[in-house]
């Protein structure tokens, strides 16, 4: 449909420089440059290293996206950019670049919420989102459960991690096991050869006393410490560490809590659709377990393909497209980067 909005999205909130282009809910381009290799030796994302990489990558990534979509900036109807939450210096590179493109090409700019964009990206794969829906966003930077009534108007936070993000726990446990960074993919792989029931690791915030105050919150710090204690005890006793079993048991603990609370959130709010996004949504066990548990309750699970789950420009473009279609006013040129943007802000008001 030619009259659907052609929207470009820019993402620089962490270590991925993304430029995506969509028309309506159709993905036309998704160009990505990652600085993940530069962070590997530090065992986590170094904000200044990420910010430097964004500045170097933004122009070539934009070039690739425009070429891939076979459009020019003049054709674009609006530019959306992640203006928060995320790493302050990294966000600022994307916001400044988005303003430069918007100014030069005379286009409206939308400063959008990164987490809402993680929800919106699913529309590129599965079409318009049935609302209300529950969204679970799990990555190295965030772990949240949200109630989505109208994505372009706002989302209601139901719960979030009170310490480490789920992806952070994967990174830390991978480091403990000497598996490198990032930890998610390698633990997923090693876990396939292991027994998820081999070691009974703790499930954070699932005890009755915790559920009262933290029904839909997560905690992964205790789990990470439990894995460290278990591994060190083996090493101290001079016994080999069964990496596959530790990986599988750790992963099971994370996925068990995440899916149990996500399903509970759906049931508590009478919601029949669960959307999962963020880098940890690429985890194979999480996808299987969520599907099995949801099916029992007649809940349908929507998870975009792994490429769209991790940070990218397409998700920002997808949210921008929904905002344009809903007639939401664009942001102004003094749009700030907001590293702690509240979930209730889907786009920054003009």
């Amino acid at each position, binding site marked *: 449909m030619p009259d659907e909005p052609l929207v470009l999205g820019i993402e620089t909130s962490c270590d991925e420089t993304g430029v995506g282009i969509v028309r309506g809910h159709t993905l036309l381009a998704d160009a990505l440059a990652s600085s993940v290799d530069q962070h590997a030796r530090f065992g986590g994302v170094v904000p200044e290293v990420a910010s430097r990489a964004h500045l170097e990558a933004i122009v070539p990534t934009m070039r690739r996206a425009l070429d891939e979509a076979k459009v020019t900036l003049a054709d674009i109807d609006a530019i959306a950019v992640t203006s928060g939450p995320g790493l302050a210096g990294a966000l*600022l590179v994307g916001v400044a670049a988005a303003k430069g493109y918007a100014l030069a090409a005379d286009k409206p700019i939308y400063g959008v919420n990164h987490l809402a964009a993680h929800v919106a990206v699913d529309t590129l794969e599965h079409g318009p989102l049935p609302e209300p829906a529950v969204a679970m966003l799990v990555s190295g930077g965030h772990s949240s459960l949200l109630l989505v009534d109208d994505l372009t108007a706002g989302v209601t936070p139901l719960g979030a991690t009170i310490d480490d993000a789920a992806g952070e726990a994967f990174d830390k446990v991978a480091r403990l096991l000497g598996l490198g960074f990032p930890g998610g993919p390698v633990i997923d792989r090693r876990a396939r050869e292991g027994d998820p029931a081999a070691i009974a690791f703790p499930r954070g915030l699932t005890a009755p006393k915790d559920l009262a105050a933290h029904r839909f919150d997560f905690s992964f710090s205790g789990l990470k410490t439990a894995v460290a204690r278990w591994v060190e005890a083996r090493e101290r006793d001079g016994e080999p560490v069964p990496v596959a079993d530790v990986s599988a048991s750790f992963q099971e603990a994370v996925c068990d809590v995440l899916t149990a609370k996500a399903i509970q959130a759906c049931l508590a709010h009478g919601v029949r659709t669960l959307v999962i996004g963020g880098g940890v949504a690429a985890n194979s066990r999480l996808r299987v377990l969520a599907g099995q548990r949801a099916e029992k309750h007649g809940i349908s699970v929507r998870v975009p393909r792994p490429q769209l789950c991790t940070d990218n420009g397409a998700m920002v473009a997808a949210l921008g497209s929904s905002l344009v279609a809903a007639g939401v006013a664009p942001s102004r040129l003094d749009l*700030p980067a907001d590293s702690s943007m509240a979930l209730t802000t889907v786009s920054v008001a003009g």
Partner: protein
Amino acid sequence: MLVLALDTATPASTAALVEVTADGLRGIAERRTVDPRAHGEKLAPEIAATLAESGVRPGDLAAIVAGIGPGPFTGLRVGLATAVSMGQALDIPTYGVCSLDALGRAAGPGRVLVATDARRREVYYATYMDGVRVTDPDVARPADVASTVEKPERVVGEGGLKYGDVFGVPVEDHLLYPPGAALVALAAERIRAAAPSEPLTPLYLRRPDAVEPTGRKSVLT
């Protein structure tokens, strides 16, 4: 030729419109906001206002000149990201100039020290003779700068104002931030020659703060 100059290497966000002719320069408009934490918010509206008040559309621009620092990283990148994105969107060349050089050139005759605030009690600095740089940009404590560089007649830049006591020479407090016209003057030959567009590589002068993990800490102790 109409040229847009941008600089965010100091607490100032500067946007200037300058006309480059065959034999000279003419400053048309300039906007500046001094706020070390607000480059990201201030610069783009300044550009829009500078162009609008001059009746110039972005498409009328022939080139963009940007100060590539040295300067505090986060703010510095705002100017550079804006410059490269505008250059790409307008398909016009971008040229980088050292932000200290703009102050040095504007300072005029004699031996001049340019010093800007590098935070952490240090300054970014370089020395100039009659507007031309004689020592490379570097970052150091003001006292170390004072004891290593040949004694200047004057100091310019807000680092000079902040550490005036240490440098012990007159401070030109009307010249604290890189002026737009001086930025363009430094690139004028390249603009007139329609030299190829340059990647705007920041002069960071410092490595990122990042420590590689050494072994792992026991949780059992």
